[in-house]
């Protein structure tokens, strides 16, 4: 099984991506989809600017996908991550895991997000609604803790 892995500046459609996985398959029992969105932070945020390390981001995404595939018998896997300027309400990241059973699909999707957040080289900078350039979003210790629980 070859996962679908993409890093792009353009928007994506989760329903379309899930349909591509379902299409013509009779063996899949569960599809778990996670979509990460850009929050408006109580209307203080104008946009997020996502910087990435081209080349390494693709390589890390492939490593994270490979790790998931060694842990769970996934039947399909899609990961899409955007970079560039992203407005509140827009989608940033998509993970879709398909498996025979829901437990595997849920676990794989959660694992993939935990690993992506702590290993994929992306950084978020805030642009505020008042026109000023805000801070770089700080990494959260709870994200590291979430990734570490997978051992």
């Amino acid at each position: 099984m070859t996962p679908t892995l993409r890093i792009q500046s353009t928007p994506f459609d989760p329903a379309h991506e899930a349909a591509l996985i379902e299409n013509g398959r009779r063996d899949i029992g569960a599809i778990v989809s996670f979509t990460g969105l850009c929050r408006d932070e109580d209307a203080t945020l104008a946009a997020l600017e996502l910087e990435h390390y081209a080349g390494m981001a693709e390589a890390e995404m492939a490593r994270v996908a490979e790790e998931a595939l060694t842990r769970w018998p996934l039947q399909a896997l899609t990961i899409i991550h955007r970079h560039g300027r992203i407005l509140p309400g827009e989608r940033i990241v998509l993970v879709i895991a398909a498996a025979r059973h829901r437990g595997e699909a849920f676990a794989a999707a959660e694992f993939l997000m935990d690993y992506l957040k702590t290993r994929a080289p992306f950084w978020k900078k805030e642009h505020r609604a008042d026109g000023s350039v805000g801070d770089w979003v700080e990494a959260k210790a709870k994200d590291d803790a979430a990734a570490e629980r997978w051992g």
Partner: protein
Amino acid sequence: MKALYFAWVRERVGRAEEEISPPPEVGTVGELIDWLKSRDETYAHAFENAAVIRAAIDKAHARHDAAIAGAREIAFFPPMTGG
């Protein structure tokens, strides 16, 4: 070797990439950070809190005790905040 900088490390250094030629006694990522800090105040500021700086050698995560011998590209950046 090529040095790359991302996010606030890039902003503080003032450039996204450059060629660097550290002396042969600089053997690890951590020693390279110390050598960069010794260059001038700009690098000293960018790398002042070295413990939070992450690094990658040839596009793979590398700890501060990793050897840099043979590296073509070394990147420095803050902890990732994607997803």
